[in-house]
């Protein structure tokens, strides 16, 4: 659906996006993650035809966005990080304006407007003024406008930033619904947990460079570099530590909050042997578990690595 090839964007001397390559398949929900200033907005704007790349190519549905922006615009729905709404009109007037501006046939407009209002839960606000909506509602209205022309690809730039927790959850629910509708979505964020549970792919960007991209599970696997085992003992912690350090399958140990964290580098799935040995040596193990590695750990690990 989206193919980004060697994309570069320079602002004067600053290289905001540096040789970026990325593929998004139809139906993918890709989380585009990076700290502030990493180049996420710049990249998304180039995909959205709003910014010309310094070099490199972007294809949306096989169409070059620089060569034929008019053909790309109807395919995409772009929601900027800052939603410039006209606030002196009513909600339905706002949507009616965009429906007409996207050249939806006149008889179909009312139906489309009702559909997106329904989807974004704004039906009761149809006759309110845009300025009277809460920030979360304005965000949803902006999303409703983005969905009016039924785009195949959604480019959402930090859709949850600046929202209170409740509004965040609402936006998240809405995004899940869009995923179920089969839309391809590129969604950016500087906070990872926000995205973790509904993306199937992620791309992590830092200082304009792609650090890692691919399936969420594969990346987690790739990044953990060995399982961390959490072991809690009734007593004799120091002795156990010495024993663990002596094992070939353990690369690193440390004590965190009275629990031993040992990095297991042996055969996957055979870490029970560690437990066996501990019991054999008379240690009283009260808990033994594999630490859960989540996207956040991956993110911290990957981005810290890129900075140092």
């Amino acid at each position, binding site marked *: 659906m989206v193919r980004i090839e060697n994309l570069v964007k320079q602002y004067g001397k600053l290289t905001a996006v540096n040789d970026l390559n990325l593929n998004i398949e139809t139906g993918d929900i890709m989380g585009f993650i990076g700290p502030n200033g990493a180049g996420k907005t710049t990249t998304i704007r180039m995909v959205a035809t709003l910014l*010309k790349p310094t070099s490199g190519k972007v294809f949306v549905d096989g169409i070059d966005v620089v060569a034929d*922006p008019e053909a790309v615009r109807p395919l995409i729905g772009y929601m*900027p990080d800052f939603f410039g*709404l006209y606030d*002196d*009109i009513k909600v339905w*007037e706002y949507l009616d304006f*965009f429906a007409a501006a996207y050249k939806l046939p006149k008889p179909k407009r009312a139906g489309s407007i009702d559909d997106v209002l329904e989807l974004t839960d704004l039906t009761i606000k149809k006759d309110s003024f845009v300025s009277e909506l809460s920030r979360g509602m304005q965000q949803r209205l902006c999303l409703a406008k983005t969905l009016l022309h039924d785009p195949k690809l959604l480019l959402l730039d930090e859709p949850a930033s600046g929202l209170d927790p409740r509004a965040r959850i609402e936006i998240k629910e809405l995004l899940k619904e869009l995923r179920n509708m089969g839309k391809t979505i590129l969604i950016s964020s500087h906070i990872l947990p926000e995205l973790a549970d509904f993306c199937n792919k992620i791309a992590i960007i830092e200082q304009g460079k792609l650090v890692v991209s691919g399936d969420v599970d594969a990346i987690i696997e790739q990044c953990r570099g060995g399982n961390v085992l959490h072991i809690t003992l009734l007593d004799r912690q120091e002795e156990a530590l010495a024993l663990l350090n002596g094992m070939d399958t353990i690369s690193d140990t440390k004590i965190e909050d009275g629990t031993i964290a040992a990095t297991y580098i042996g055969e996957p799935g055979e870490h029970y042997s560690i437990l066996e040995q501990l019991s054999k040596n008379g240690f009283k193990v009260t808990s033994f578990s594999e630490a859960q590695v989540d996207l956040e750990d991956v993110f911290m690990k990957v981005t810290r690595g890129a900075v140092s």
Partner: protein
Amino acid sequence: MRWFEQHLERLDWPLLTLELRRSRRSAKIFGQMLWISIGFLVYGLLMFAMFAMCAPAVLKVNTNDSDLVVFLTMVIALWRSLFSFFVVPSYSARMISSEKENRSFEHLALTSLSAKDIVIQKAALPIFYSLAITVVLLPLDIVVLAFSGALQYCFVGSLGFVCQVALYTGIGILSSCLCNNTRSASVITYLTIIFAPISSASLWARPWFSLGALNVDVVPQEIDLWLIRVVLSILISIAVAALCFYLAVGKIERLRCSV
């Protein structure tokens, strides 16, 4: 006006419909026009009182002219000049620059509207209003100019007014494309209008319609000279307005991929 607006909405020009809805609510254009009208009615009355005292000597007012005709001519001419000079440029200068200011331009840029659609639809409102004003004032014009015996010029005068509005709108929308905030766009617009010799030529053609009506005893030769000037300034206004619109379209096309 209401009837006129309803017909405009049928055009299905989204930006025009949007502007109509917004201006109707905030009463921007209408409010301004109302205040200017009231202001100039008062001003016109004062002027009239003044003229009544000294005009016969200075302007050689034909004693056959009724005082009411003189007064009406003044008010119509001044009101139109003010609409075109105060309302139109400030409104036009706001068009694209305010979109940039509140960042709604990026939404607009992604729609299926072409750059030409955007310019035409944005500029349509002041031009349509000036057409409406012309239509409303034309009967009055005809009456007034018929009294003063210069009827043949009333159509030229009306056309001149619409062209002037188009010219100022063109200058306004072009400067609003060039500036990122409305204030600098307004400043540029007014400076251009004041200093551009062309626009001042068309401006300077206006007072004739008020004073010309007073001065019916001018020799025919002189009237022809005025007419030539007016027609020329109309033609120049159209040409410059077209150039401004053309440049604005190009600028919007470029803005679209660099917001």
